[in-house]
């Protein structure tokens, strides 16, 4: 069975929690004791119907305030696939949570209310999905029951969205009319919308082809840990442990180690203690080389004819996640693949209005939940690819050196 990670974006008002509840319920992934607990809680809150949102809003504060604050992860499986849902809050003050949920997603569902159509927040969600390079986007037009199952209304919203999405980089867009409340087109085909010729949402999630989304072209192996057994049996063993970020590695491959530039050849690959002939992303393996060269954590093994940039000057889109604004002149710790160094903020080129995509070039700081293009200078080079080419070697985080908090998420534009 394979795995699909998807993120949902939308607010409680759009029916997001109801949609997730419906997916879980109709695919028989809600357990009876969970449902009983939710029913009890709904009654004690005085709700007139079972509030499926309580299934995902796990924190006390969320239940008290009736909002989703943080990303919640949900798991369900059908006969075809296992799914991990990153359920992200939709309000603008939780943009950082949506960015977090989208960072690992293969697919994102953006929900809109058919009565309201495309709102500012729908545009923001679509933009974040494209910024984080989530390969597949589903626009779920919800509450179709409240617009009389109107094909016209569906087409109107769809066309408006497609026009907006043309400005973004969205490789695969699917638009589905649903009613999460009644279940139409969620798990089974709707009888109320015979004009819709596509598949129901769950069917789409089960079948969307994600095999080609992985980058198996650019060999990138960030060294995570050096394995040197202190035993007589493996006295001469020296292996480089890590998770293949992209590409395929084979025994006998010529490689180059960055940043030193030392060439070598792969003499062996161990996978869980057993030797294998080849390995590929995203496997965690241990690689051995023919030559005894100095390699440590944070170095990268790649192919001589296909290398990342080795650079201290990084242009990146940064999503800011701290109450204290980002300003030129500040210094942060930066973590990129397995490498950790320091970064100095040289410049903010512009701040992006996430609702209108307008570039504000006069910005002197990035406030919480703002996104902007930033110029960084690092104390030692990063081994980076553009994020648009490689999510694993193009993403980094900024860490406040006093509090150790993660304060920013960066996507390399140019290194």
């Amino acid at each position, binding site marked *: 069975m394979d795995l699909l990670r998807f993120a949902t974006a939308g607010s409680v008002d759009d029916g997001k929690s109801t949609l997730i509840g419906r997916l879980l319920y109709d695919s028989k992934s809600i357990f009876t*004791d969970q449902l009983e607990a939710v029913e009890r809680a709904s009654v004690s809150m005085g709700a007139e119907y079972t509030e499926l949102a309580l299934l995902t809003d796990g924190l006390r504060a969320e239940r008290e305030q009736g909002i989703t604050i943080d990303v919640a992860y949900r798991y369900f499986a059908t006969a075809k696939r296992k799914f991990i849902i990153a359920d992200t809050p939709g309000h603008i003050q939780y943009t950082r949570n949506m960015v977090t949920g989208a960072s690992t997603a293969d697919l994102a569902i953006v929900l809109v209310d058919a009565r309201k159509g495309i709102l500012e927040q729908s545009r923001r969600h679509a933009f974040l999905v494209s910024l984080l390079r989530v390969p597949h986007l589903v626009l779920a037009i919800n509450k179709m029951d409240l617009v009389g199952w109107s094909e016209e209304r569906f087409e109107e919203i769809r066309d408006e969205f497609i026009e907006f999405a043309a400005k973004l980089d969205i490789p695969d867009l699917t638009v589905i009319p649903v009613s999460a409340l009644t279940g139409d087109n969620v798990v089974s085909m709707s009888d109320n919308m015979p004009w819709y010729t596509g598949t129901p949402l769950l069917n789409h999630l089960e079948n969307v082809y994600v095999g080609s989304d992985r980058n198996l072209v650019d060999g990138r192996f960030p060294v995570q840990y050096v394995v040197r*057994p202190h035993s007589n049996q493996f006295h001469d063993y020296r292996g480089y442990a890590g998770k293949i970020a992209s590409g395929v590695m084979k025994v006998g491959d010529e490689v180059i180690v960055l940043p030193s530039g030392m060439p070598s050849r792969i003499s062996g690959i161990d996978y869980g203690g057993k030797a294998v002939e080849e390995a590929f992303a995203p496997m965690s393996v241990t690689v051995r080389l023919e030559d005894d060269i100095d390699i440590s954590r944070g170095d990268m093994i790649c192919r001589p004819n296909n290398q990342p940039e080795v650079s201290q000057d990084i242009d990146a889109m940064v999503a800011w996640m701290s109450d204290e604004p980002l300003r030129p002149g500040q210094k942060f710790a930066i973590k990129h693949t397995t490498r950790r160094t320091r970064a100095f903020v040289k410049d903010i080129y512009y701040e992006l209005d996430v609702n209108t995509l307008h570039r504000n070039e006069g910005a002197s700081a990035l406030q919480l939940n703002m996104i902007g293009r930033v110029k960084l200078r690092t104390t030692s080079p990063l081994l980076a690819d553009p994020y648009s080419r490689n999510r694993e070697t193009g993403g980094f985080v900024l860490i406040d050196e006093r509090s*150790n908090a*993660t304060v920013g998420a960066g996507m390399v534009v140019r290194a």
Partner: protein
Amino acid sequence: MIDTDRRQTKRHLTQLQVLEAEAIYIIREVVAEVENPAMMFSGGKDSIVMLHLAAKAFAPSAIPFPVLHIDTGHNFPEVLEFRDLCVSKYRVNLVVGSVQDAIDRNVVFEDRSGSRNRIQTPVLLETAAKHGFNALMGGARRDEEKARAKERVFSFRDEFGQWDPKSQRPELWSIYNAQVHVGESIRVFPLSNWTELDIWEYIAAEGIGVPPIYYAHQREVFERNGMWFAANNFCQPTANEPTEVKSVRYRTVGDATLTAAVLSEADTVEKVIEEVSVTRITERGATRGDDKFSEAAMEDRKKEGYF
């Protein structure tokens, strides 16, 4: 149909392989970034899987950290035996924090309910401090409970071991922030994205042994609050709770005073997988008295430093 064919081409990973690669990466990341980590190990199925992954992560080296068990004194003997078996098999050092010992020293006080679930938290914090562990890996999974569904893989704890759900560090891609100040610590959950079913499928795929009480066996049990409890030293039936011998197995193993068995005929790993894949009740819902206290029982315990 082309779609299916393409999916079956080589260089395809199953969900178990993806989860395995992720867990191994997380465990290695802890060792690479943290000076003095330890792994929680009780002899329960999740911790056994986690230890197995640790062995794979560093092979052919030995596992480069000790394992830690907070011994409530309320143990199933089969599980304790299995714990020791694993410790010698994987050649790891075992550190034990004893709740009984802490009670004897008046560090903690026995709960009126008799459960030691809540009072194990101070013992955990004390033991971790004594050994200077600044990262603890645990086998908790997000599918177990709704507060856990919100917790990060690398979960920051302040100097009191407390979790603050409102100020969690954003966690993007596979970049984890393990940085802490002296006295603070990190809890790490390599199995965050695994479900109960994934655990069992992995146990089957890798041929991993688990304590016999996870498989169906005959046991003298009695019914309390709709759950089946073993009649033993830790759990005495009252006059209104007749005991009977039934075929049961344990889905989870915790404090023996409040961990219930489930009626089951599943005596092999294949049958357990079959049973788990059609069950309509969560494992904690079926077997734990402790989470039923309130809607936010787990969140509240975690805020005090619980795993």
